[in-house]
């Protein structure tokens, strides 16, 4: 029973970190993309662009 419980505890903490780190990676990816889009369109529209 204890061994079975241990499996569920490990599963719970693994799922928690997968979701939290997965969301962090998503934010990093979206953030980099948004920053790159912003820099590009700023150059295209205003040369130096509003910063």
């Amino acid at each position, binding site marked *: 029973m204890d061994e079975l419980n241990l499996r569920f505890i490990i599963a*719970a903490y693994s799922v928690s970190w997968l*979701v939290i780190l997965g969301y962090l990676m998503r934010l990093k990816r979206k953030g980099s993309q948004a920053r790159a889009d912003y820099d590009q369109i700023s150059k295209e529209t205003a040369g130096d662009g509003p910063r």
Partner: protein
Amino acid sequence: MPQTELSRESRAAAPPRTSAFFGFIAFAALIAAQVFSILTSPAEADMGHLQKIMYVHVPAAWMAFISFFVVLVFSVRYLWKKRENDDLLAASAAEVGATFTGLTLMLGMIWGRPAWGVWWVWDARLTSTLVLFLIFVGYLALRAFVDDAEQRARWSAAVGAIGAINVPIVYMSVKWWRTLHQPQSSPSTLDPAYTMGLRLNAIALLLVTIYFIRKRYEIARLERAVEHLAEAAAMGGK
């Protein structure tokens, strides 16, 4: 000055970057809190060490509630003042809240299987939490499918404000109805051996939640700034 009266240049300005150091502190605090609570909490009389799942399940639920409270406040504020940044902040909190609600449901299922013998039952707490999750998945889908920024903001503010009303229903469900789910776990209802671990995990996950919402808000403002610049370019202005 209302947001709608701001100059095109200020609406298209890049927001300040969210502090990476704050994010590092938040994640370090979460790791420390989890290690502390796993190592120091004794086995519970009925559930044994399975009780340790509480340190991730309960704070995740609380962070979902806090996020949806932010959605409620800034959705109502958007409907009142029509400030674009209120809409972006509400949407950022909704995404984080939906993530934590999904996590709460998954952790509840992992707890339920060994504790109750089933992954899922249609009891009031589980069902109302699932409804809350689906409302905010719908909220995010709505934002993805409506192109007009003002219409998107108005509709999602209405859905966000109405959806957040489900939070007290979820919270009170274990009191209002007979449920398989136990009453709320909080420092006031717990054995003192478990309260410090729960408090530390809740504070650490709150820091992570604040970091997530701030970061998502920064991205949302950048995306809107790009839209404003593209509109300006399309109209031939700078």
